[in-house]
């Protein structure tokens, strides 16, 4: 099979891998400072609707539409983050889940979002290099954060929030930063997604997608940016790879989830495991 027909067939899948990679990274960002937020699907939805309305109804340039789709969810995240981030653990997860449902119902009842019919005929503007560029920027941003005082603060907060505060870290602000940046990345991913799937409806951004995004990050592992990317890619490909199983396709999906949680708690991409391998190989080489 030659390249161009391969690309014709799988281009959307490849774009999805990139976009879901970004979504997994968006939740990785909050997870990396210990926040279990399930609001990212809602932020994706806000970004997707915002940018689709911008191109579809106002015919603004795509770049500007994507910009709006990044900024609006970040602004919403900023507003709800201030009260919500006082919660932690399961309570935060449930509150963000509730927020996501509220967003869904609002999308369902607004006129500008097209209600349950959603938005259709969104122009096909997303091309491969948009996704590559957005993904590269996201990865660069996260890597830059990681190897800086902010990244260390994320990690410190995840491990022991109280100790981190007593080390002079303004934990509230750092957590808000992670939450807002996560929302921005999810929004950008949503904007890209809207312009290669041509249609949006509120159901695309409900509980199920929130769980999907979380699952990608956990499956891949949250020890570095490679994990969520890997998780996003696998969960995007898996339904395609498992087509042969027909009705039981999703059952395999469920089993894989359970197996990873049970047998690979750090996710597939686990630098500590790799380090152990390298070390054992290193000692062998020395001997």
């Amino acid at each position: 099979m030659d390249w161009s027909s391969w690309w014709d067939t799988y281009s959307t899948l490849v774009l999805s891998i990139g976009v879901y990679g970004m979504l997994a990274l968006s939740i990785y960002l909050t997870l990396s400072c210990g926040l279990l937020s399930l609001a990212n699907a809602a932020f994706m939805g806000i970004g997707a609707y915002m940018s689709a309305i911008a191109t579809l109804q106002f015919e603004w340039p795509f770049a500007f539409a994507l910009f709006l789709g990044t900024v609006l969810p970040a602004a919403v995240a900023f507003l709800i983050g201030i009260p919500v981030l006082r919660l932690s653990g399961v309570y935060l997860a449930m509150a963000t889940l509730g927020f996501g449902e509220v967003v869904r119902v609002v999308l369902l009842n607004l006129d500008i979002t097209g209600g349950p019919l959603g938005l259709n005929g969104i122009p096909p503007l997303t091309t491969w290099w948009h996704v590559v560029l957005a993904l590269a920027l996201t990865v660069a941003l996260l890597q830059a954060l990681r190897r800086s005082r902010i990244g260390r603060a994320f990690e410190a907060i995840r491990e022991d929030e109280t100790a981190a505060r007593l080390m002079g870290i303004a934990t509230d602000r750092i957590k808000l930063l992670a939450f807002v940046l996560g929302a921005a990345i999810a929004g950008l991913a949503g904007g890209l997604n809207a312009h290669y799937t041509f249609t949006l409806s509120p159901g695309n951004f409900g509980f199920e997608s929130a769980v999907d995004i979380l699952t990608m990050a956990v499956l891949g592992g949250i020890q570095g940016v490679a994990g969520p990317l890997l998780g996003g890619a696998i969960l995007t490909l898996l339904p395609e790879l498992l087509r042969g199983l027909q009705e039981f396709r999703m059952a395999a999906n469920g089993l894989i989830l359970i197996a990873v949680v049970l047998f690979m708690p750090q996710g597939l991409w686990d630098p500590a495991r790799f380090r152990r391998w390298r070390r054992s190989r290193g000692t062998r080489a020395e001997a």
Partner: protein
Amino acid sequence: MFAQQIVNAISLGSVYALFALGFTLVFGILGVINLSHGGIFMVGAYAALLLLTRFEIPFWAALPLAMLAAGLLGLAIDLLILKQLRKRGAPHLMPMIATIGAAILMTSLSQGLFGSETRRFPLDLFDQESFSWGPVTIPVLQAGITALSVLLMLLMVWVLKRTRIGQALRAVAESPKAASLLGIPVERLFHLTSFVAAALGGAAGILIGLSFDAISPFMGQPMLHKGIAAIILGGLGDVRGAVLGGLFLGAAEVFAVTVLSSEYRDALSFGLLFLVLLWRPQGLFGASATRSA
């Protein structure tokens, strides 16, 4: 109309309450949000359907058998998944994801086995009578469900407050570590809790299947959402709170339909959940302790 709406609120709320009862119990004792509770609820309904239609077992026997099946499923989830995670001291995120996996598995399997059509119990199983009292109509089955969920709640509260097992369970809820130091067989209580909670979830599925045309592989998901809202309104892990939370949620939804507009009903319930978490994370009815029974 107002009186009828109060009846409606109680009947809707008790459905939520019944589901929330087992859901909150698992959180209270195991400290785990078991997102497969919706799946167990669905399996309970299918188990009863299968027993009634395929094996033609009378209802009085099918109900406990189906509850047993759901309970065993809950026990299996505990032994195969939650126990492994407890042993490892995995963070709270892990059981949530694993139970999501279990829910997907259950939904997919039952879809493969039973198809995706919505089914219901044979209509002639119970008379669908309702009795009228002035302007108010009360379907008999609904009254039964309400009575049953209140009864089960009272039973659970009694067990937790008055019995030795209940005492032990409360100790476990407080701190599993301390409880095991006191010689309480913590693991066995975890198994027991998982079993009982799942049996309750299964019972909820059966009863809802009885009064509505609602048995499908996907029936668990919407109920799970309502259940989450109910147990948060009532205070996570609080058995009494779960039932009150369920009734409150039902009342809030009916109120939304009556006074506001039915379009924003779902936003109301989740908006409430959101606000309650911000202002009273211990729930509307609880005292200060969040994990007490």
